[in-house]
């Protein structure tokens, strides 16, 4: 008979804590955040059912109207229903944010693992390259690259992914440095395990939890960033209803109607607020270092 004692990885501990949702909901700000994120997801999933009109259907005679019974949030300069456009805009927000954060997460993990585990000159080179990417304010970097690649959703996702890589790589690298000190890694190495096995089986699972929390916290930031690029005309193209495009079209007609800017702006603020409140409460609940100080 063989006894195998497996250390519980942080991912398992993370999963055990799924009931934390109850704990998040007990806090007023956490519950508010959860509610907003929930409504956002409902809008994303049920957009065709919820939207009263086709988001691209033009109705010139009823353009630039304020809220009415026929158009709850009013219409834009082409008579399109603003409510429908905002509901469909949630899909664009998610379609842009999730892939770009995933690219940043995966790219960051790979670079961070290489830098942290191999160390030496490889580490130095990776750090300098990351510092160079970070030397450009994200908007400016995106402008420079999108100016050349041309505006499109795919290019936008790639650029956001690139701009966010250094953050994840930095955290991964720091985590690898501290995980390397652990006895179980020492033990595995002294048993002659290959580096690849140590990194993938022992180090990666142990550093994943903080990275996933970081990714969750980055989602709202990336959503506003995407809307900003679309506002500048460097993201998705009209008539796709990105919130940034609704804002930019509203900006062109700001003297005729306040409604597109008002609704799209409020939607962006509330969505970001919801994700941030939910993410921060989740982090407070999950972060074991804060346990004990929480109720102080």
């Amino acid at each position, binding site marked *: 008979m063989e006894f195998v004692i497996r250390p519980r990885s942080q991912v398992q501990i993370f999963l055990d804590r799924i009931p934390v949702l109850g704990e998040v909901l007990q806090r007023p700000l956490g519950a508010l955040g959860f509610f907003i994120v929930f409504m956002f997801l409902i809008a994303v999933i049920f957009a065709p059912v919820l939207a009263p009109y086709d988001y691209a259907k033009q109705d010139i005679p009823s353009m630039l109207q304020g809220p009415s019974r026929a158009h709850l949030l009013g219409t834009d300069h082409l008579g399109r229903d603003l409510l429908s456009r905002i509901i469909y805009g949630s899909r664009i927000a998610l379609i842009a944010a999730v892939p770009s954060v995933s690219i940043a997460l995966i790219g960051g993990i790979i670079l961070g693992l290489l830098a942290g585990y191999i160390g030496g000159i490889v580490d130095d080179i990776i750090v300098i390259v990351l510092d160079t990417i970070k030397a450009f304010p994200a908007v400016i970097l995106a*402008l420079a690259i999108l100016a050349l690649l041309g505006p499109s959703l795919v290019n936008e996702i790639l650029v956001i992914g690139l701009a966010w890589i250094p953050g994840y790589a930095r955290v991964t690298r720091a985590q690898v440095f501290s995980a390397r000190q652990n006895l179980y890694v020492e033990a595995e190495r002294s048993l002659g395990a290959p580096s690849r096995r140590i990194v993938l089986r022992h180090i990666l699972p142990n550093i994943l939890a903080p990275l996933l929390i970081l990714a969750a916290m980055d989602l709202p930031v990336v959503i506003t960033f995407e809307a900003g690029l679309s506002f500048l005309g460097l993201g998705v193209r009209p008539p796709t209803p990105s919130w940034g495009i609704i804002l930019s079209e509203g900006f062109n007609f700001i003297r005729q109607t306040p409604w597109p800017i008002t609704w799209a702006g409020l939607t962006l603020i509330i969505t970001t607020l919801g994700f941030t409140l939910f993410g921060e409460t989740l982090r407070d609940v999950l972060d074991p270092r804060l346990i004990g100080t929480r109720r102080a």
Partner: protein
Amino acid sequence: MRRYLLKRLVTTILVLLLSMVFLALLVHIVPGDAARTLLGPRATPELIAKVRSEMDLDKPPMVQVGLFIWKILHGSFGTDVFTGRPISMLIGSALPHTIILAFSSLGLAVLLGIPLGVFSATHPDSWLDRILALFSISFITIPSYVGGLFLLLIFAVQLRVMPAIGVGDPSNIPDYIKHLILPAVALAITWVGYLARLVRASMLEVLNENYIRAALAAGIPLRKVVYKYALKNALIPTVAVLGVGLGNLMGGAVFVEIIFSRAGMGTLIYNAIQSRNYPIVRAGVLVVACLFIAANLLADLAYTYLDPRIQLDKMQG
């Protein structure tokens, strides 16, 4: 300490060089020919050839990189193809407006954010502290372009109490300031919230330190302890953040400058992108990156100087 400074300087120079290499080579990711895209479909082959040679596109990539860096080190960004004016002149007339805008916003954020943070930290868990917490998170989540559009809509379009466009007349200081208010507020909103939260957290930490308790036990009034002893240490992390903040403000300035039709680096780069004027985009981006790098370096050095405790960690790291 000296070793740390040296290492930091060497990395900064390497990052600067690498940024220039990146920007020099970036032109090659354009599908097609950059000079042709710049000049449009009706340009004659002779003109395209001339611009290609002005942009050094007719030389091998490594030579392009070398020439780009060489010219910049000699203070030249080349001339604008369309107006024939030196690009450095265009930057020289745009940059001051952006720097004034960024510093005004930062000043506004510091003036509002730090007192709010101190107030929250000295009244922890009071209802006012909770309301301030919700406000600071909400402020953080308002992107500068949404803030800018809302301010424009309310104060310039609906109430008509503020000017909507332009930087105003630089020789007329009150007019210039009047044109600066809305853009600076729009850019500052996020940072007011951010600084309030940061200062609250670090202030709470400092207020728990023994030396503060000792000062209070010695009967020194709370106000004096907070503002004279605690704030000094609580502000150290803020200094490090301000460097990053200044860079982010330069990024956010792009949106605000476009919304308020202000002259500045943001509009310069943005308009250059619209007309595919790549040499201006490249020069503008490089200048902004240099300022960002310099701000980070200064903040980092100030941080090391202000907090002697971190020097050892950094030297070992």
